[in-house]
């Protein structure tokens, strides 16, 4: 009844929708924290997914336009969030500049209609380093005792898991000829894992 594409899309969208629903339900519990903007971010993710699906069908717009815009906005959002939660802010500022430079490079030297890999790789490396710094900071604090009820811990774990799986996929894609279903299945699993951890980050607020 359903083809593989639809199933994979549904599998990808379901955790994203669920994360947005939990973000709305748990809003009073984190509205005064550094995670308050995640509700808008998760809403934005859903809008992007809809646009990424509908625009090419309805208006023949290239999907890369939507996903490149998503890369720029989500990258800046995540790096800004890391800047607000990490003690070593200079490091994150450097990553923001490098990320913006990589976008600038792509704007001048690559087409907008092709999925930009350089900003994605820069973003993945930056987030992996920021996540490591966050975990090492947390390990040095007494709050580590309650890490399972720390919303930031679960969100960072989600980001780490996604980008740790995503980075080799992007880098090896060319060499191993990863495309079509072989590329989309691992990406979908990564997305499910990441949004699973984001959902957990909202659920742990209940225990708090």
């Amino acid at each position: 009844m359903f083809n593989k594409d639809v199933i994979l899309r549904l599998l990808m969208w379901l955790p994203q929708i669920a994360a947005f629903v939990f973000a709305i339900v748990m809003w009073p519990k984190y509205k005064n924290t550094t995670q308050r903007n995640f509700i808008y971010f998760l809403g934005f993710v859903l809008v992007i997914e809809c646009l990424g699906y509908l625009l090419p069908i309805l208006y023949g717009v290239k999907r890369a336009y939507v996903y490149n815009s998503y890369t720029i906005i989500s990258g800046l959002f995540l790096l800004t969030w890391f800047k607000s939660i990490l003690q070593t802010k200079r490091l994150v500022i450097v990553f923001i500049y490098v990320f913006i430079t990589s976008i600038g490079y792509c704007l001048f030297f690559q087409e907008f209609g092709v999925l930009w890999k350089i900003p994605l790789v820069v973003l993945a490396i930056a987030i992996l380093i920021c996540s490591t710094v966050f975990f090492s900071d947390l390990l040095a604090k007494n709050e580590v005792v309650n890490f399972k009820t720390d919303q930031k811990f679960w969100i960072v774990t989600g980001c780490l898991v996604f980008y740790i799986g995503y980075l080799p996929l992007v880098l090896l894609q060319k060499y191993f000829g990863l495309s079509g279903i072989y590329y989309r299945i691992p990406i979908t699993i990564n997305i499910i894992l990441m949004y699973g951890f984001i959902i957990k980050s909202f659920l742990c607020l209940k225990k708090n």
Partner: protein
Amino acid sequence: MSEKELIFIALFSVALLVVLSLIFLFMTFNNRKNKLIQEQLETKLNNQKRQHELELNALRAQMNPHFVHNSLNAIQYYIQLNQVEKSEDYLSKFSKLMRQFFEYSRKERISVEHEISLLKNYLEIEKLRFEDDFDFQLNIDKVLDTQDLFLPPMILQPIVENAINHGIFHKKGKGEVSIDFVSINDFSFKVEITDDGIGINKSKLMNAKKKQTHTEHSSFVLEERLTLLRESKHWDVAFTIQDLADTSNKTGTKVTLIFKEGLNEDDYDH
């Protein structure tokens, strides 16, 4: 190797990387968490152990062998003088005091009323020892709720003992100790122990020439107990000691303790 096999190996490696990262992450955090909890428990246990040691020391300080010996000697003296009624009266006070020492030392807190009763007993026995050279006054604020306000046991008696043995003992002529219980508000009160002895400065000079005395030891025990009580967050006891000669023409020492009670009342319900 075929292209499909290569893709499979690549994807399997990525999946393995993700899983191993997650396992490593959670193992690291769980180990650190357990280590921290263990450290916190050990610190708490050590503090409790030290608290119990100090309580035992405080009890030993109260059960000062010199005090017991002198009190029994004084009772014996009255027996020899054939003052049976007086000796019986003091013997009963002495036995009551011993019972109170043991009973209260087991408790985490005692009411002000019980502390006053213990001090009264103790002071009356000391009066027997010093006879006319010693007198005492116990002044209790009328608004002070002596039944519902509490304080840690074995805190005031060692201070009173210091006042007598260090302040008044070395004074020529009659000495007096005055203990004032003053209400501050519903949850806190002040205790002032004043003696008209030689004063703490002079007493320290005298003791400096000797080896560590029992009184010095009990003062150390008291100070450490007050620190631990503050750390336990059940009590907030402010402690000040003042030589009266520093601020007036009088001689003597004034010790002031301010008890702020009720920080963690629920902890006593068990």
